[in-house]
């Protein structure tokens, strides 16, 4: 048989056996190609397109390459391990290592070429779907066209050629290192055996749990002001990351094993078949699995955390637009407002107006601030904030020497530890007026052109008229009133928005809630889309890695299934055990990952939006469902394996 025949024959056999490796390849290529196609979509062009975010997409594509590479390296490693016996045999009959390497390389080359063709085709086919999804999420009204991007094609080709090179190099070193004997023994060699659990390991286990809890604890206190500087915050984040990841590793290595052994010891050797297939099999590999499980857990936690946070911002986009604009349309210039109203009258659009006078004062709020946060952009003794009269807002009741803060930004509130009440001093040009701040309100009173994210102060009508002459002229903005226009019939907002757009005015800021909301959605939508894409890639790769691992374990344990079936255990008996094993292998990293991500989200979600539970739970449920698919897949794989065992 010539070497070419050998290659072709090997390839045929291997595609059948290792369809998963091929699947991994095709999937990675399709994913990457679709993503890069998107990157070159005309809508993404910064000059002509309506979506900004090329840099983000590019960064994401680099991250995608990293994920895909690690994934393929792992698949390749398993692939080589499975075939080590074959390589040993080739060497035994006198083939040189160089020659075997050539066979493997050519085989891989053919595999890569075929997969590239199929993968690019699939990626091309789904790219329209993906682009459509992106447009929908960001609210871009443009029809997604199916066009083959040559640039994307070349880039994909280049990336996978490099990955191919890396994998060939690794295979070369692998083959060179192995002797014939060790090649024969790769599969029978079991991991270092579980002996007794030593005190060391118990120590590890406890340390792991302590580290994780410490990370969680610190994450909960991160923004409470104990780490009051940007450097401090950064250091804290690093600490949390390190302690949680290390803790997770030790948790798997120590605690889980320890708990398992305790359970096993209690049985005094009297294990039933369920426990044989789940508990003992899991414990048998726990030491080497610890690393893999840690990686999977971290990746899942990262994916769920990022997805939750970005979904929180997307979900909250509407609300934050509301906060910034205070009415459907907001003007600061009376003339423009009047012409807008005339236009509305003409088209018979019903509306209500609300005019608020705004004064700007320096306010000494140092009494309210509990955290000494270095990075604040304002001086607490002189916080410049807009002041309005309670009469204009209509809804708030304020006594004469009191003041109510509204529209306080959550981030500022959290970072400064601002109290809900206390004494503040209003500093006019030539007077100081102490006032009692009684409460924080959520009311949207004026548009953000006045407040720039700082709170707005509402004082009583009387106080307002007292101070109206004494404000420092240098603090005032060129405009001093907010004119809000509220459209009565929500269906006509769109029409009103068109009128609004025609009344461009550079001199005075004016805002439309609808336009704001759209812009927010577009920004958040693109971010969410990219994060979602990466999250999906994370999910699929970690699922596939676990699935591969299970396949590998299954092959290793096949003799056990044969023995058990010969001894008379039914397929059902065995499958129940396998269920337990899958629940552990997939469930534990998922559970720990969910827990980790919960704490990540919990610690910083207010930086991203206003709504925590709904978006986070939606993300978690969807992630769990998709992830479980892989568990079910591997269960089916085991079922086939057990069925064939006898």
């Amino acid at each position: 048989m010539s070497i070419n025949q050998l290659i072709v024959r090997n390839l045929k056999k291997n595609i059948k056996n290792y369809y998963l490796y091929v699947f991994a390849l095709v999937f990675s290529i399709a994913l990457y190609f679709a993503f890069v196609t998107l990157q070159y979509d005309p809508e993404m062009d910064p000059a002509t397109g309506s979506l900004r975010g090329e840099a983000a997409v590019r960064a994401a594509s680099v991250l995608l390459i990293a994920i895909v590479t690690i994934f393929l390296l792992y698949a390749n490693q398993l692939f080589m391990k499975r075939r080590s016996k074959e390589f040993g045999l080739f060497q035994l009959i006198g083939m040189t290592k160089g020659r075997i390497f050539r066979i493997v390389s050519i085989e891989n080359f053919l595999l890569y070429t075929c997969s590239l063709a199929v993968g690019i085709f699939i990626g091309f086919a789904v790219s329209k779907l993906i682009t459509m999804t992106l447009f929908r999420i960001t609210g871009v009204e443009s029809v997604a066209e199916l066009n083959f991007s040559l640039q994307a094609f070349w880039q994909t080709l280049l990336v996978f050629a490099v990955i191919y090179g890396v994998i060939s190099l690794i295979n070369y070193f692998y083959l060179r290192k192995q002797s014939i004997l060790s090649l024969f023994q790769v599969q029978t060699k079991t991991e270092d055996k579980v002996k007794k659990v030593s005190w060391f390991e118990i120590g590890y286990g406890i340390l792991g749990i302590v580290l994780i809890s410490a990370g969680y604890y610190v994450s909960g206190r991160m923004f409470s002001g104990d780490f009051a500087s940007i450097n401090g915050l950064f250091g804290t984040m690093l600490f949390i990351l390190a302690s949680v990841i290390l803790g997770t590793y030790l948790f798997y290595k120590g605690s889980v094993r320890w708990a398992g052994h305790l359970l096993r010891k209690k049985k005094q050797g009297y294990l039933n078949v369920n426990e044989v297939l789940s508990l003992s099999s899991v414990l048998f590999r726990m030491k080497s699995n610890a690393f893999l499980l840690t990686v999977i857990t971290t990746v899942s936690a990262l994916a769920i955390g990022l997805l939750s946070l970005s979904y929180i911002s997307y979900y909250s986009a509407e609300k934050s637009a509301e906060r910034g604009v205070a009415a459907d349309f907001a003007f600061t210039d009376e003339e423009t407002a009047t012409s807008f109203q005339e236009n509305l009258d003409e088209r018979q659009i019903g509306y209500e107006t609300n005019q608020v006078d705004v004064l700007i004062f320096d306010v000494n709020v140092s009494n309210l601030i509990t955290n000494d946060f270095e990075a604040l952009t304002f001086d607490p003794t002189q916080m410049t904030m807009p002041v309005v009269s309670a009469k204009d807002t209509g809804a708030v009741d304020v006594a004469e020497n009191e003041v109510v803060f509204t529209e306080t930004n959550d981030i500022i509130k959290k970072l400064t530890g601002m109290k809900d009440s206390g004494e503040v001093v209003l500093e006019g040009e030539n007077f100081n007026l102490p006032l009692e701040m009684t409460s924080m309100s959520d009311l949207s009173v004026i548009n953000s052109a006045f407040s720039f994210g700082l709170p707005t102060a509402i004082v009583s009508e009387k106080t307002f008229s007292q101070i109206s002459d004494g404000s420092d002229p240098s603090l005032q903005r060129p405009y001093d009133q907010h004119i809000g226009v509220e459209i009565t019939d929500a269906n006509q907002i769109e029409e009103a928005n068109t009128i609004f757009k025609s009344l461009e005015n550079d001199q005075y800021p004016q805002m439309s809630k609808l336009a704001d909301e759209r812009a927010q959605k577009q920004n958040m939508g693109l971010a969410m889309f990219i994060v979602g894409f990466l999250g999906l890639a994370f999910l699929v790769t970690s699922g596939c890695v676990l699935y591969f691992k299970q396949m590998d374990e299954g092959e290793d344990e096949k003799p056990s299934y044969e023995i058990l079936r010969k001894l008379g255990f039914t397929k059902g008996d065995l499958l129940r055990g396998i269920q337990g094993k899958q629940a552990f292998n997939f469930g534990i990293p998922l559970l720990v990952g969910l827990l980790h991500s919960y704490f990540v989200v919990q610690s910083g979600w207010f930086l991203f939006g206003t709504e925590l539970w709904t978006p986070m739970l939606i993300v978690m449920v969807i992630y769990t469902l998709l992830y479980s698919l892989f568990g079910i897949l591997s269960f089916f794989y085991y079922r086939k394996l057990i069925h064939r065992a006898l």
Partner: protein
Amino acid sequence: MVILEANKLYKSYGNRFTKQDVLRGIDLTIEKGEFVSIMGASGSGKTTLLNVLSSIDRVSRGTVVIENTEMTGRKEKNLAEFRKNHLGFIFQEYNLLDTLTVKENILLPLSIVKIPKREALARFESLAEELGILDIADKYPNEISGGQKQRTSAARAFIHEPSIIFADEPTGALDSKSASDLLNKLSELNEKRSATIAMVTHDPVAASYCSRVIFIQDGRIYTQLNKGDQSRQAFFQDIMKTQGVLGGIQNEY
């Protein structure tokens, strides 16, 4: 009392065109407390016979009755249940589960029989004591020798007191010292517990420990030898002679 009864067993592999008959009409009965060995050259069908007797494989024609229960034609799940409860196995490659300790391996068949833990542990202790593996109870299979593995495997076959134990070349992978150790233990257990054992072997020494030897050739029973009252040595000579006739080669001892 008859434990196992096989009538006109036929077994063939392959499809219509590549059909190959392995068993061609074997009749066989095994009484309670017997230690029977089945001998034959390689390819004579002895392992196939053991597999169909023990319901691991299906017969093409014929019936197998174990303890008045008809085994042929029953559902796979049903058969598995029967094996689990009533049969014991010892294989050439030990077939121990790597992930379990010696003790766990031995106790495995008991996990489905509802007996109290204390009783199970007591059974384990006495059996492990007899087979000399009590001190390695907490070791994993890859930490013990081949002989120890095979004795573990034997203990697993005996622990649930099955109606009959099938042994497929149990000494095949052992050195002669470990092999004779194991056979001594097996025949001891056979006598003490009046366990029924059917063993396939090609080793005349192993066969000489039995009370009866059945020779198979080309899928048929060729002859049978009974040990009766003769010594093991004399029985061994008989077996050698028969094997010589069977294989066409005269062994000189």
